[in-house]
C-alpha cells in the first residue's frame, strides 16, 4: 500500500550511500512484484479456466476431481455449436452489432450537435434544459424500465431492434462530455466561418466535428461496449428468440445445456472473446472515457 512512495528520491540516494537502504528498497520491490503477479494470476484464472474447459470432452468435464489442463484437447465442442441449427450464432452477432452500431451513431450525432448548441449558443432555457438532461442520469434504470416497456408496447416496438435504438437516441453522458470539449474550441473560428457565409449546419460539420476526433472515438467505444454487453433492457424488449442479442442467447444456451458445461464454455468463448479482444485493443480509448466520469 505504501509502495508508491517507496521510490527513493535520487537526491537522497546520493547523499547517504547506505547499502541497507537500497537493499531494503530492492526487497520491497521484489515483494511488490510477487504480490502483483499472484493477484494477476488470480484475476486471470476464471478466463483461463473458461478457455481451457472449452477444449475438454463431455466425459472429462464431468470428472471428479476436475482437471485443469485438458487431457486430450478437442475441438468437438466448437464443431457442435457452430453446427447447431438452434444456435445460428451469426444471426445473433448481426442482431447485437446492428443495435450497438446504430446506438453508437445516434449517440455520437446527438451528443456532438447538442453539446455544440449548449456550448456555443445563448438561448432561453439553456441552463434548465441542460440540467434536466444531466438529471436524467440520476434515475436508476429500474425506475424508467417499466413505463419504457409500456411506451414501446404502445408504439408497437417490442421485439423490434428499433425499440432498443430509438429510446436511447440521446445520451445525457454524451451531451455532457461533448459540451466540455466543444467549450474549448475558440469562438473566433466559428465567427470567421460565419462571416465567410458558412451555414450553421456547415459550421457544425466542417469546423466543430473535425476537432472532436478523440472524444468521439472514446465515446463511440464506450457506447458500443455498453450496448454490446447490455442485458436487462434487451431481455425485456426482445422476447422472440430470433430477435435476441448475444448475452441473452448465451444465458438461454447455458440453461439449455446446464449438464454439458463443456459446450457452455465453448459458447462463452465464441460469444465473449472476439469482442473482448477488440475492446482490449482499444482499451486506451475506453479508459480515457471512464476516467472522464471518475475525474473531476
Amino acid at each position, binding site marked *: 500500500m505504501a509502495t508508491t512512495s517507496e521510490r527513493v528520491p535520487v537526491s537522497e540516494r546520493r547523499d547517504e550511500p547506505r547499502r541497507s537502504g537500497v537493499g531494503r528498497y530492492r526487497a520491497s520491490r521484489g515483494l511488490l512484484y510477487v504480490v502483483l503477479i499472484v493477484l494477476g494470476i488470480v484475476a486471470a484464472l476464471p478466463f483461463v479456466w473458461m478457455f481451457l474447459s472449452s477444449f475438454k470432452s463431455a466425459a472429462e468435464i464431468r470428472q471428479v476431481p476436475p482437471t485443469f489442463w485438458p487431457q486430450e484437447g478437442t475441438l468437438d465442442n466448437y464443431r457442435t455449436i457452430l453446427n447447431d441449427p438452434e444456435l445460428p450464432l451469426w444471426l445473433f452477432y448481426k442482431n447485437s452489432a446492428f443495435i450497438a452500431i446504430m446506438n453508437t451513431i445516434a449517440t455520437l450525432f446527438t451528443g456532438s450537435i447538442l453539446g455544440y448548441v449548449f456550448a456555443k449558443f445563448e438561448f432561453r432555457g439553456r441552463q434548465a434544459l441542460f440540467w434536466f438532461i444531466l438529471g436524467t442520469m440520476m434515475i436508476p434504470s429500474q425506475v424508467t424500465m417499466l413505463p419504457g416497456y409500456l*411506451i414501446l408496447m404502445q408504439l408497437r416496438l417490442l421485439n423490434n431492434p428499433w425499440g432498443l435504438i430509438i429510446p436511447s437516441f440521446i445520451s445525457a453522458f454524451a451531451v455532457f462530455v461533448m459540451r466540455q470539449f466543444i467549450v474549448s474550441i475558440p469562438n473566433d473560428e466559428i465567427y470567421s466561418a460565419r462571416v465567410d457565409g458558412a451555414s450553421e449546419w456547415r459550421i457544425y460539420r466542417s469546423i466543430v466535428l473535425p476537432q472532436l476526433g478523440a472524444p468521439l472515438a472514446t465515446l463511440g467505444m464506450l457506447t458500443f461496449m455498453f450496448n454490446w454487453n447490455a442485458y436487462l433492457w434487451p431481455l425485456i424488449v426482445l422476447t422472440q428468440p430470433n430477435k435476441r442479442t448475444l448475452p441473452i442467447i448465451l444465458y438461454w444456451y447455458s440453461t439449455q445445456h446446464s449438464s454439458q458445461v463443456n459446450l457452455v464454455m465453448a459458447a462463452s468463448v465464441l460469444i465473449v472473446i472476439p469482442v473482448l479482444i477488440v475492446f482490449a485493443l482499444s482499451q486506451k480509448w475506453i479508459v480515457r472515457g471512464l476516467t472522464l466520469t471518475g475525474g473531476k
Partner: protein
Amino acid sequence: MSQAIEIRRRRRWFGGREGAQKRFVAGVTLPAIAFMLVFSLLPIVWAFALAFFDFSPRRAGTPFLGLGGNNPFVGLEHFRQMLDTSTGQSVQVSQFHTALKVTLAFAFLVVPLNLAITLPLAAMIESVHERVKPVFRTVFFLPVLASSVGVAIIWVFVLHPQNGLLNGIIRAFTGKTTQIGWITDARLVFLGIPVALIAVIVAYLWQDIGYNLVIFIAALQAIPQSVKDAARVDGASAWQTFRHITLPLLMPTILLTSILTMISAFQVFDLFQVMTDGGPQDQTRALSLDIYQEAFRFQKMGWAAAVSVVLFALVFVISLAQTRLLRSRWEY
C-alpha cells in the same frame, strides 16, 4: 444615401444571420425536447404514477395510460403494505423485505471491499516499471470489458459443486473431497451472510474492480512527484507520505468513486439473475431482480413500480448522505 442603404442592408444581413442561428438552435433543441419529454420525463412521471395503481399490462384500463378502470387507483396502499411486518404479510411483501436486505447487504459490503482492494492495488501498479504497468492494468481491467452474462456463467462453473475450479483447488490443498454448493446450498452462512450472496459479491468485485482501478491510477498520476519527494526529504516515512499527502489529495476521487460504486451496486441485475436467479431460498433476491420478476413474470407492474420508487429513494438518500459524510471529513 448609399451609406444608409448599406447600413440597412448590413442590419438585415446580420438579422438574417441571427435568424439562421435561431433556426439552427430551434432545429436541434426542439426535437431533443420532444424526445426527452417522451422518453425521459414521461417514464419518470409514469413510474411514480404506476406506484399508486394496481396495474397489470394484461388488463385494459381507461384510455389514459391504461390507469383506472380495471387497474384501480390504490393510493398509498403499496407503500402501506411495505411497512407491514406482521406474520400474515403477503408473499410479495416478505419478498420485498428480503430483497431490501439483500441489496443493502450487497451494496454496503461491495463499496468498502472495492475501495480496500482498488486503492492499494492502484498504488502498487502505479509504482511498478513503466514497461509492465499496462500488462497488470489490462489483466485487472479485462473483466470490466466482458459481458456480465459471460462473467456470471464463468463463475457459476468455477463454483460448481462437483466439477468446479474452487472445490478443485480446495481439494488440491487439503486433500479432502469437497462438494460445496457455494451458490446452491441455502444452509451455508458465513458471519450471518449467506455464502451464495458472498459468491455474487466476489464475482461482482472481480468484474468491477478494474473500473475504479483505472480511475485511481489516473488520480495517482495527477499527483506531482515533487510533492511526495518534498515530504520524504522532510523525513516522512512511506506510510506517512501516503497517509498525509497522497490520501488527502485523493479524497475527492475516493468520494466520487464510492458514490458511483454504491449507485451501481444498488442496480446490479445481470449477475444476480444469471448466477442464482435469486436463490437459494431468496437469499440473493436483490431489489432489481425483485422488480423484474414482479413486473414481467407476475405482471404486477403497480407493485413493481412502487418497489422501484423505493430503490430510487434509497439511491438518492444514500448518495446525498455519502457526499455529506465524506466532504465533512476532507474539508477540515
